[in-house]
């Protein structure tokens, strides 16, 4: 089927089977290979993108469902050559090791920071909240501590989290 999707702010037209996964369209057809495939089952979050304002696993979305919708991938997080606050914080805090989960974590974390979903009157409460919000993103290297450090730093910088 013919379809049009807005990807990182630009309209893209495609001719694809509607059953094809959004993940495969992004990587194979649009060559946006920042989005990774981990499990293909919606368990690991490596393929997280933002679809119509929600963080979703792109391995679980059929491309037919994306006609007329908008997608933001990790390639779309930076604006005007400036990394998103979450990306800068991941670099500054060392919140990445092998890197496979990192694009999904960056997209999900940027989403929850931008939406102001990280709440908590104190550091410990905010960290628990971040771990819940990022629970769908599995990392097998870091132990998460430095990732949580980065997300809380980004939230403090952009949304006035205490």
């Amino acid at each position, binding site marked *: 089927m013919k379809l049009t999707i807005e990807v990182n702010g630009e309209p893209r037209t495609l001719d694809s089977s509607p*059953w094809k996964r959004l993940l495969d369209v992004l990587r194979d057809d649009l060559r946006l290979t920042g989005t990774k495939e981990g499990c293909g089952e919606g368990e690991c979050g490596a393929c997280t993108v933002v679809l119509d304002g929600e963080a979703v696993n792109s391995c679980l979305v*059929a491309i037919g*469902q994306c006609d007329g919708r908008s997608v933001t991938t990790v390639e779309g997080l930076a604006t005007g050559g400036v990394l998103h606050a979450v990306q800068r914080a991941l670099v500054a805090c060392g919140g990445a090791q092998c890197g496979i989960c990192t694009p999904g974590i960056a997209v999900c974390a940027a989403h929850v920071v931008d939406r102001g979903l990280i709440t908590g009157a104190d550091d410990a409460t905010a960290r628990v909240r971040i771990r819940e919000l990022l*629970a*769908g993103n599995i990392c097998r290297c870091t132990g998460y501590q430095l990732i949580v450090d980065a997300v809380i730093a980004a939230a403090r910088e952009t949304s006035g989290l205490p």
Partner: protein
Amino acid sequence: MTAYLRPRDLDEALAARAAHPDWMVLAGGTDLMVNANHRPVPVGMIDLWRLHAIGFVRVADETIAIGAGTTWHDVERHPAIRERLAPLAAAAREIGALQIQARATLGGNVGTSSPVGDSLPVLLALDAELEVASVRGHRRVPYHAWCTGYRTTQLATDELIVCAHVPVPGPTTRTAWRKIGTRRAQSISKVMGAAAITLDGDVVTSARVALGAVAERPIRIAAVEAAVRGQPLAAAADAARAAMRAAIQPIDDVRSTASYRRQVAENLVARFFSVS
């Protein structure tokens, strides 16, 4: 190539369903798209994602109607559901994680009807009723009669799930929800359950107790419900535990063992009745 239809309203959706009973009906796709590249390619897809006609939450005094297309994200954040159907909001928060909750729907959980569908024991405990529709008309099915076996339901091949009508528990009914898995997020439950316990003072006048992951479908535990009726709450936990022993026949599988599930299910049900 797979055909694709995105109906604009319920009539279009029902006409498509009647015309193409072999097409996949999907909304968020969080079950149906798992390992999609290793599954048989569907003949066609009827895409109900964000179909307005099934995307509502209607709050009345005694019942809350939740459209089949409502996501768990929507359920968890809805103020009336959080306040008046607390175990459903609690279950919603433990289904998958953020990415799954943004796409997975109540109708998907009910339609897939997995024995480990986390919301399903809640619908049993709250005595929900489903509304389904076809070009032939609408009908209602009590949820306790919905599941007919392992991942099979009463849904006919021309029907779609419209909504769940969930009675709001009264002031003398306390409710509970608990899920046990390897971790809170993402992991599929080893055992989960829900209860609605109606009290007169501290005497249990009636109870609905439901468990998932202990049988081929989500089940009410009639033996427990009978054992606690008329008991003071202080004695009900022990009565529930005793009645649990012969009530379920869980299995060994990759996620847990029958003996662990049996022990945890007993503890979980007893805790529903513990005085707090």
